[in-house]
């Protein structure tokens, strides 16, 4: 397994959710689980995906933020549901 230093944080973005904002709370666990499943298919197990993902966006935005190495980021970007994978970029106060 790559060391922590090889990992960077990325956003994996799937677009929007089909559920409404009101339904979001009810479906939250299911969405999180689907994120584990998808990343797990790249990392080799759901447990590894659980370790890697630090945010699941479950309400309006569909996606997650995870610590990945470059190869893992490249692999997940090939998943058919993924719109974009991009680094957890920094911004400045203005």
């Amino acid at each position, binding site marked *: 397994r790559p060391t922590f230093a090889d990992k960077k*944080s990325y956003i994996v*973005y799937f677009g929007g959710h089909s559920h409404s904002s009101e339904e979001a709370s009810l479906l939250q666990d299911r969405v999180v689980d689907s994120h584990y499943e998808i990343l797990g298919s790249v990392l080799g197990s759901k447990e590894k995906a659980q370790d890697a993902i630090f945010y699941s966006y479950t309400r309006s935005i569909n996606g997650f*933020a995870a610590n990945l190495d470059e190869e893992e980021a490249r692999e997940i970007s090939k998943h058919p549901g993924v*719109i*974009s994978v991009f680094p957890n*970029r*920094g911004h400045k106060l203005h």
Partner: protein
Amino acid sequence: TTRSWDFMGLERDGVVPESSIWTKARFGEDVIIGNLDTGVWPESESFKDDDMGPIPSNWKGTCQNETDKQFRCNRKLIGARYFNKGYQSLVGPLSPELNSPRDNEGHGTHTLSTAAGRIVPGATLFGYSTGMAKGGAPNARVAAYKVCWPPVDGSECFDADILAAFDAAIHDGVHVLSVSLGGDPVDYFYDGLAIGSFHAVKNGLTVVCSAGNSGPFLGTVSNVAPWILTVGASTIDREFPSYVQLRNRKQMKGQSLSPVGLQQNFHPLISSKEAKATNMSSEDATQCLLGSLEPAKVRGKVVVCLRGNNGRVEKGEAVRQAGGVGMILANDESTGNEIIADAHVLPATHISYSDGVALLSYINSTKSPLGYITTPKTMLDTYPAPFMAAFSSRGPNTINPEILKPDITAPGVSIIAAYTGASGPTGLPFDSRRVLFNSESGTSMSCPHVSGIAGLLKALHPDWSPSAIKSAIVTSARTQDNTLEPMSNSSFVKADPFSYGSGHVRPNRAMDPGLVYDLTTNDYLNFLCSLGYNSTQNALFNVEPYLCPSRPLNIGDLNYPSISIPYLSGAVSVIRTVKNVGTPGTYRVRVIEPAGISVSVKPTSLKFMKVGEEKKFKVTLKAKSRDAAGDYAFGKLIWSDGMHYVRSPIVVKAGG
């Protein structure tokens, strides 16, 4: 803020007229304004909840105070959350006490109180500009989403946390989101802020963002997605003059908010370059970085430092640490006449580039140069105002030059608003002073002014879309200053739409714009199709089934409230649709043509019978001669029924 609302005509000498948008919009009652920033200082008077009714029943937000039991929300500050997992993924675990939405920095308290702080009498910074502090929508509820943390590699706020905050704010029930942060522009699908704001706008939230502080250079504007309302920064009609008096009787006008001056007491003057410490670079000394000055050379003297991008406030401390008694901060050529009043830690004043050149010339040509700095005063009704801040980032939009950015300008220089109790007014560790209100400058400060106004419009017109609110703000802006001359830049040269977008925000006009350029989510998706995103991507983006049109939208036809043609070759036409949100009437068009460009509009008049009615028109632009190729030229398109003036800037580059 203690002056900017008066400057924009919402009040006159503390009296709010019946005709003010404040009166009409009940000071923003029933609206919820969220802020993505450094958190909030909940004890600030600007967030007191006296006489406010119960929290709206549809509010789903929360107040995260499990580690900071002193942190309390109330009926004004109805929500406060923090997001730092993305930050921690880079810096490692934070100490537990930092798991709080409390603002230790000051920026978030300042911006949130500017957007919607309550009315606080007696607000002042060191006795200057004493008055009633008010936010743009003082009766609106507020919610703080803390996404910015101490800087790491020059960045403070990270995409992962920003996205989490957007997702929460949409769910919580926020109406307007104020976002005073940004980065270099990148493709929309690779930018957390663009993605988050798209989802917000799709859900009916208006998202207002700062344009950035990378001016005055062209092509520096950030937050350029068309669904964002992007705000540049300009001055107000208030100054804090503090003069440099030289022994040769010459006087230079600077600005400062130092608590004291060096009244009537001549002191030796030295340039910081001359005062360079051994082993330090001349560049560091010129900028007065900490430790760059030689105490033996500086002791008892007034030091002249050059303004730079590394922060103005550290310089005063560098002079003080070296034993200096005062500081004169001089602009470089790029910042020209833009002088900013800051709460320096010693007697100090900030002077223009030309005065700086004259001052250094005096120092270099005089055997014993002497001078002093007078105690600052508050001056109102100064002119010209507004003029554009040199730091305000400028267009063209480097992602899509067909979309004019920034959209608008608003007050962002020397703005006094609420501040944290955890830091001194310079924000630096050595500053042990504590203030209830502080003066700050940046597009961060202009952005929440527009957020507050968007909140007022939401209160007044709850059924308007985010695009309609944006259109009303953009088309009602003015481009004249208070001398009735065209707005200028910090060198007093005429400014242009790359600096101010459509002009300076005019809230009382925005409440009754007459016509709006409206846009739906599908319009934005068509726009993305034109950029090459396919139906599948857009369907995922939007969730509902979506097919790109068989004939892609001409990007120039996005129903934006401004017109930007970066590549004019031959004749180019764009289509716009206006919706009547005022009274029935007939609007006639007037065009101020960009130099060297002919503009024709068809039809030239539009008759509206009822509210909500929409009419299309076509604008055709053509270079008047082949020689017109070259720089951007600027014009204006105005629809008017005699009561309303619906103005759109035209930006065009022939042969581009």
